[in-house]
């Protein structure tokens, strides 16, 4: 991964980054990606036992939409943490 690629990814991730840091990261990523790429050596499939569905700890959990709480109950508590607000709105710079 070259430094330009790192800068492109930083842009996608909305992180301001200088050329020096991008260069340093690109040098480190070689070793890291090499190591994590080993993962493809795991033989999958035949070892996975299908006899119980609950073999995995992570699964999708769905629920019906429930009754929401009373409107405005937590508004002040949440908005108190906002860096900038106007009334009950978060305040940001003009977009258009």
């Amino acid at each position, binding site marked *: *991964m070259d430094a330009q*690629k*790192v800068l492109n*990814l*930083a842009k*996608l*991730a*909305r*992180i*301001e*980054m200088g050329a020096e*840091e991008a260069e340093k*990261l690109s040098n*480190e*990523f070689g*070793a*890291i990606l090499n*190591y*994590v*790429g*080993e*993962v*493809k*050596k*795991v*033989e*999958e*499939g035949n*070892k*996975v*036992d299908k006899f119980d569905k*609950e*073999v*995995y*700890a*992570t699964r999708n*959990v769905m*629920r019906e939409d429930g009754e929401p709480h009373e409107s405005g109950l*937590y508004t002040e*508590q*949440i908005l*108190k*943490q*906002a*860096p*900038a607000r106007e009334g009950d709105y*978060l305040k*940001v*710079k*003009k*977009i258009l």
Partner: protein
Amino acid sequence: MIDLSKLTIKGARESLRKKEFTSRELTQASLSLIEEKDGNIHAFLEVYDDVLSQADEADKKISAGVDLPLLGIPIALKDNMLFAEHKATAGSKILNGFTAPYDATAVEKLKAAGAVLIGRTNMDEFAMGSSTENSAYGPTKNPHDLTRVPGGTSGGSAAAVAANMALGALGSDTGGSIRQPAALCGIVGLKPTYGRVSRSGLIAFASSLDQIGPFAKTVTDAEIIYNTIRGLDPLDSTTVGEDTYPHKKEFEKIIGVPREFVEKEGIGEETKKNLEEAIEKFESLGYKVVDVKLPSVPYSLSAYYIIQPAEASSNLARFDGVKYGAHVDGENSIDDYFQTRGAGFGPEVRRRIILGTYVLSSGYYDAYYGMAVKAKEAITAELRQTFRSVDLILTPTTPSPAFKFGEKSSPLEMYLEDIFTVHANISGCPAISLPSGFSGKLPLGVELTADLGREDNLFKAGKEFLGE
């Protein structure tokens, strides 16, 4: 003066019940020790200003004859857990000044059990690291040797308990962040089964791996905290109930040791010798120790360093300088994001966000993330099948005792610190680190892993091992 070094949660509860001392006296003893030692150790980022009033509340209840598992006991919280109206920063500058609007479920449960929440402890920024060197607020030092790291990411919680500044603490464990610092600081650390403890109010890092768990001086104390914080929670839909993992095997005192894996991973001589001693000790306690083959498990760390940064890169997208936390002004709205995130996130967090963005990007997704998810399934199945014939798997917790500050010079070297802990997060299985002796003055730890939902096996074997 109360001697905290000799006190356990269980013992302190007995003394409080018998009125040998009050919670205020106990809490004051903790505060004095923090005052005396924490200037050097730096386990705490903040001691809460309402600690003594919490202790007085507990004393009122004790006087009224109330008996609760943690009533009047000083407990520390990792800095990534919300305690309403108190600060929480996850060791990051981007949350500097943030005040929690509500309680994490685990915190609420501690409060309901009467705990005195003493303060928030230092951690690697957003729980990324293995030494607390990545904290934006300076590192924590190992109480056994101030020139060495306490481990991480919950290094502050581990150091606080090891230095007797708190009788117990909560940590979070995504790849070893409770067990590794517990081992390096010479105490007990438990990562429960994935979903056993609600993460509502835990600042999210990698959501398919994160789990909250206790630090304590004994297995008995860890179990007391665990029983307090566990349980189904409508606010965290990944929590599991008592029936989610039906027991597949009766406990028969059989321990599996994956020797091939352990010996391949370049562990130190002291650590190797210590593992052999632990095996002998278990055998003398009537355990049958057998060799097990786990060909997929060594790839857990590779899978982990794909899945975890991928999830972190999306979880940390919420820090935008708009809703809460720090804000750095830019030229326009989108530049606000760049400036806020550019200034707020430290080097390791940036590294992982970039790595996560990369492994999820079009063209690389199948080669990295897709393969990692398949490996995760294979590793889980391999472990669960092994647990049909053994009750526990025994390994060292870490490849070596506590290392010096700055010793791990490349990111990959630091990542390898999780080699023996990360399988438990990848599979969701519970695991505990037990103090198992010393190399010089530095503590060593061994780790037991059990099948999903089998914390009971960890507690049984852990108590026997430590003679409780």
